[in-house]
């Protein structure tokens, strides 16, 4: 009986640890390492990245949601820490620029093809 209980607790513990690690990886892949060149926190081995990884995994264990963690980190480091920032007043051009250029390009192509006809 004791052995069964031990196995159940062991399996449950390892599944939970995997879940924490998976979520830590998922979150840190979307965080910019501010002291590195173009690397995410997940990829980097810098002191800063290590601190953030430990911090994120601690917050997950404290049952914080991904949004709570992103909100906390952006309140401390600004949107610069996110690789995929939310749609906001500051970032609207970033999100809409591709669509804007696509529409302009399509307009010119359309006009040109009409001219040729």
């Amino acid at each position: 009986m004791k052995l069964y209980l031990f196995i159940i607790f062991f399996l449950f513990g390892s599944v939970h640890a995997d879940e924490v690690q998976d979520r830590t990886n998922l979150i840190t892949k979307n965080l910019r390492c501010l002291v590195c060149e173009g690397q995410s926190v997940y990829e980097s081995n810098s002191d800063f990245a290590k601190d953030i990884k430990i911090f994120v995994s601690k917050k997950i264990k404290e049952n914080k949601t991904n949004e709570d963690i992103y909100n906390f980190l952006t309140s401390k480091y600004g949107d610069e820490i996110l690789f995929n920032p939310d749609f906001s007043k500051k970032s609207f051009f970033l999100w809409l620029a591709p669509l804007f250029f696509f529409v302009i390009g399509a307009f010119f192509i359309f006009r040109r093809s009409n001219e040729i006809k």
Partner: protein
Amino acid sequence: MYLEKKYKISLLIFFSLIAFYFFYSSLFKEKKITPRAMIGNKIPNLQSQTLFKDEILAFSNVVKDEKFVVNIFASWCAPCKIEHPFLMELKKNKIKIIGINYKDNQKNAKAFIKKYQNPYEKILIDENGALSIQLGAFGVPETFLVDKNFIIIEKHIGPIDKNFIKKAVNLK
């Protein structure tokens, strides 16, 4: 028709030159990001164990109703040695400095202070970098100028200089 073609080509050259200028100038720009999210916000009242005494202190236990400076440092950090005389100058100007000893060996940190003199009112230990994250810091040295209402006025990444001292002294 000929004029229109000429106009189009000049427009294309003009925009290409602008694009070239932006890409070329960005090659020489320093790519360091300086997050300013914390400036204008209240500094968290962090607490931790102090370096020289076996006591746990918060910022509010060290400073009361006065401006102060928070400096993140480590004995293994070479630029911290460069900025040390400036910290001593701040102390001479009667500005309290709270040190955050970042991921350091306590013995080395004490030896560092003994060798270069102690500009700090109190030194809090940041064993795993958790305090620095609360401050939105990402390295050493990093220094914050805080007013008497605990609002962060200035954040300086790298060794502080004469300008920082001037700002600290002039802050009411």
